[in-house]
């Protein structure tokens, strides 16, 4: 199938004073039309930076290298004015932290509608129709009191409700690619199931491609077609969801899966290294239980597998 997004050797670094801190290193993946790719990994590994880099929303001190192609067009270094029309309409985002991602002084309905109205009614929808379509989305997302909620402020809604408002903002423009950042992070266990179902429905009904950033492996399993495992700014393994979860190839993926409560809660030892002081060889080497002599000296290269790759000296085809 045709690729909607192609990310090749994406490098992102941040200039901190005179020092350059490299966060993403040679991140490569693609997302086909209507496909959901989940990026999993522990907090601070660079998942959200990847999403922000695609959206051209990194801080001013960031430097981006490599290439990002959307629908065959290289969008890596295009000017802000040229890229802005893509945001919201072609590539939309559902951010993490519902409590801080909504403007506290603006009614939630207005916050959803401005995704469309600011683009001069591109979709030919007048205000009343737009309100109706937003209320319709609210209803599909199983929000209560849908008519009143439109005129509520974020502080009047619960975390789960705000999370669904953020999802509404992401899908109201019917984008082709949705970047979803930690959708289950700030919500309780009961709502988590509902939110996962929302994305499953989105995948089925709207057939929109998604980059599903999460550390919730169970959520990724329910929604994603493929999974990319990220560790310390690098993708160490990528493949079909079932293959990655049932037959993990990289020791980090194995550790991550073993740490799931359903798989025995065997938490990995050690911590992710600081981006300011990275190991010379494999970044996972200090924590790896299967390390070889080469691991501390050289960086493992990409070994292609069916619909993905693995970066590990241990892995043999």
């Amino acid at each position, binding site marked *: 199938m045709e690729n909607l997004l192609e990310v090749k050797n994406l490098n992102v670094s941040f200039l901190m004073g005179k020092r350059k801190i490299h966060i993403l290193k040679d991140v490569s993946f693609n997302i086909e039309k209507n496909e959901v790719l989940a990026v999993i990994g522990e907090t601070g590994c660079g998942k959200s930076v990847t999403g*922000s880099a695609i*959206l051209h*929303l990194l801080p001013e001190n960031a430097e981006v290298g490599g290439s990002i192609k959307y629908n065959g067009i290289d969008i890596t270094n295009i000017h802000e004015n040229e890229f*802005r*029309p*893509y*945001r*919201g*309409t072609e590539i*939309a*985002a559902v*951010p993490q*932290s519902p409590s*801080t*991602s*909504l*403007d*506290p*002084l*603006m009614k939630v309905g207005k916050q959803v509608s*401005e*995704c469309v109205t*600011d*683009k001069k009614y591109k979709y030919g929808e007048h205000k009343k129709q737009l309100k109706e379509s937003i209320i319709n989305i609210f209803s599909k997302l199983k929000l209560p009191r849908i008519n009143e909620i439109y005129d509520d*402020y974020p*502080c*009047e809604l619960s975390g789960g409700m705000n999370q669904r408002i*953020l999802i509404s*903002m992401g899908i109201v423009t019917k984008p082709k690619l949705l970047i979803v950042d930690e959708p289950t992070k700030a919500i309780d266990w009961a709502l988590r199931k509902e939110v996962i179902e929302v994305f499953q429905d989105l995948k089925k009904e709207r057939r929109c491609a998604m980059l599903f950033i999460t550390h919730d492996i169970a959520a990724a399993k329910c929604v994603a077609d493929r999974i990319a495992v990220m560790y310390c700014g690098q993708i160490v393994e990528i493949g079909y969801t079932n293959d990655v979860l049932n037959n993990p190839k990289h020791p980090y993926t194995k550790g991550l899966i073993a740490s799931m409560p359903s798989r025995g809660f065997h938490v990995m030892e050690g911590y992710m290294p600081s981006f300011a002081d990275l190991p010379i060889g494999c970044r996972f080497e200090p924590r790896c239980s299967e390390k070889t002599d080469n691991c501390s000296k050289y960086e493992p290269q990409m070994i292609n597998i069916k619909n993905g790759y693995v970066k590990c000296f241990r892995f043999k085809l």
Partner: protein
Amino acid sequence: MLGYLIKRIVIVFGVLWMVSTLTYFTVHVTPGDTATAILYSIGGENAVSEKNIEHVRDKLDLNRPVYLQYFEWVTNSFKGNFGTSYKYNKPVLYMIKLRLPNTIKLGITAFLISVAVSIPLGIISALNHNRIVDHLSRIFTLLTSSFPSFWIAIIFIIFFALKLKLLPVSGMDSPKSIVLPAITLSLGMMAPIIRMMRTSMLDVMGQDYIWVSRAKGLKESAIIWRHVLRNAIPPIITVLGLQIGHILGGAVIIENIFSWPGVGGLLIDAINAKDTPMIEGCVLVVAFGYTFINLVVDIIYACIDPRLKYSGEGK
């Protein structure tokens, strides 16, 4: 909202009572005899004699205990009678009514100049964070907050009135007369507004919802107007309310330097003459202005920020 309003109004009256009581007793514990001060301010050294002092004390009932004088003053104040000025021998309220419009005129002009300069400058500084405009604005705020207003007033008089002869030195004979005192007064309150506006803008610009606005594809101008400014303004309203106090306090000095016939000048004269009723009247006017403006600020704040309704502060 009504409960919140009533609570705030009660606080306003409480503050006014505390201010008036403190002022009354402070005037009485300061060194110097009231009768002597009154005689000196009216007729100079020659007017001060044992006989005259006794006469003044008898006439103004100054021989009674201070607390009795205080209770009488409080009772009369509730009836709207703030007493008669010792120095001018006219009702305090009449004198204040005569001078207050001038102070309000000067205060509003200074406030408007200050807001018109500070808010745009704070916004420009934030939007050009750490660039040359931001550095220049920082230097400007440092200068305006470092120089005392009386020094700036003297420099302005020397430069604009005496050297260039563009504006009058003092008084309020022509519409031009307000320019120098108003600018001098406004300069003193610009620094905190500029800095607060800049900090507030930068703080909001770093919030997640601004990132989200960009992710929505909104134009930068729309983000600034709809999201950044709207969220940056509430703290500024608080600062503006507090700066009204600066205007009322600063007017006392500025009115004297520029011979502006306002309440500030009246208060200085009253302090020199130990004219207790007049001091009380002037201080009450200033305190009322300050507390009333801050009440308005709190109400505006409660109206524009829906979170206050739920945090209990707006209840």
